[in-house]
């Protein structure tokens, strides 16, 4: 029964959402909005609670074991501090919450994001070799694309940006579309397997 009930709920809501997509009646729209706005948002709120509990439990356990104590204490301090700031001064305008967001969160996150540029550089140096004919073609295409996306475009002969645009709009696009069609069909069959109860791994159960 513990598995059967979620499967029935899953099938029921799968069918409801599928049907509502094609209906134009005001009642159908009301039900749709009810599910999307109220029900879905309530579930989201509860998932946040689950996340916070897991986060705290995970860090407290690690601290008690003596793993990365300083970092984990700092993380827990943040988890406690931010809601207090939000509750006392709010989260808008020039509140302390926004100050922390703009002066701590934004620079920290941008720094991690900027690592991407360093990793692109090292990956290009290490892995982008003309090992074979097709790899050499890829290399040349990438070369022309990078050149045409920089400010040097105006200084380059016209055929270089033209080739780059052609590569992007033809072979690259064709490959991308084929992959997207495959992904779309894969998503369709996986969703159907879940709705019909053929796939039950998500319940922790066997197929």
């Amino acid at each position, binding site marked *: 029964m513990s598995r059967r009930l979620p499967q029935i709920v899953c099938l029921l809501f799968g069918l409801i959402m599928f049907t509502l997509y094609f209906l134009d009646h005001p009642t159908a729209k009301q039900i749709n909005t009810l599910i999307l706005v109220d029900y879905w948002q309530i579930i989201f709120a509860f998932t946040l609670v689950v996340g916070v509990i897991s986060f705290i439990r995970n860090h407290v356990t690690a601290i008690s074991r003596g793993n990365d104590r300083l970092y984990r204490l700092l993380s827990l301090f943040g988890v406690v501090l931010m809601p207090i700031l939000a509750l006392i001064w709010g989260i808008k305008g020039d509140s302390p919450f926004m100050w922390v967001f703009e002066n701590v969160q934004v620079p920290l996150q941008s720094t991690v994001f900027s690592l991407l540029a360093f990793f692109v550089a090292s990956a290009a140096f*290490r892995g982008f070799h003309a090992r074979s004919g097709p790899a050499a073609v890829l290399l040349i295409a990438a070369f022309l694309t990078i050149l045409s996306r920089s400010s040097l475009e105006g200084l380059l002969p016209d055929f270089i940006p033209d080739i780059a645009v052609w590569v992007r709009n033809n072979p690259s696009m064709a490959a991308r579309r084929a992959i997207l069609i495959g992904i779309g069909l894969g998503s369709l069959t996986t969703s159907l397997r879940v709705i019909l109860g053929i796939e039950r791994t998500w319940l922790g159960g066997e197929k």
Partner: protein
Amino acid sequence: MTKITSRHYVFAGLFAVVTVSMMLNYSPDTVVSAETQKMYDFVESLPAGSTLIISFDHEASSLPEIRPLALAVLRHAFRNDIKLIGTALLSEGTGVGYRLMQQTANEFNKSYGVDYVYLGFKPQYIAAILSMGESISRTYPVDYLGKTYSEHPMLKDIDTYNDIAGVISIADGSLTTHWIEYGNARFGVRISAALTAAMVTTYDPYLSSGQLEAIVGGLRGAAEYEKLLNIGGGGKRGMLAQTASHLYVLILVIAGNVMYFRRRSSGRGNT
């Protein structure tokens, strides 16, 4: 002690290239691409008084790249007297979006509630996009500042996507895809996007099929947009650093290949 490897030199080189070029007070000229021109033309084609949704679908991390893009698009819209509804489908874009809208609105003397409204964050992006198609007022009963939806004069006749001219998703990831798959496919709303450079080619199939109206991408796109608007900005300022780092990566690729072929010719390179 970590052993210094070629990877560390590569990192140090990139840091030096970007830092030095940021210090130089020079902004190279950019050629406006067809896709940026299309985005500009799309906003230009909207009659004054029409309403656009600007959705801040990005994280705080991409702000250095997103900010110049968002500012250029917002300035263009306000310059053309287009009314704007701000939303955010990622929590971190919420505060950022409000600040950017407020800043540009002040530049053009636009009033809150009359010329623009910021509805704020709504979790569960797919649900949010779908439910806005049914009723924006029901999805956002109150705005970011806590005022009720009906308080705003500009929202008086707006409740579904049928009442707006389009959506511009300012995104650093795949959220624009959901606007296309649910907003456009289900409700027929016109979708455009201002994207980080890494995401631009992801949307090529949608752009060529017409499901996506127009895109402007990356720092380069921001610089091109600023050129079209005849203004300066973060896009133009960042172009030297971007061009220098592109060239640096090209040099690295050449160096990597030279080393690879040298290793291969000496019989060690088949790795």
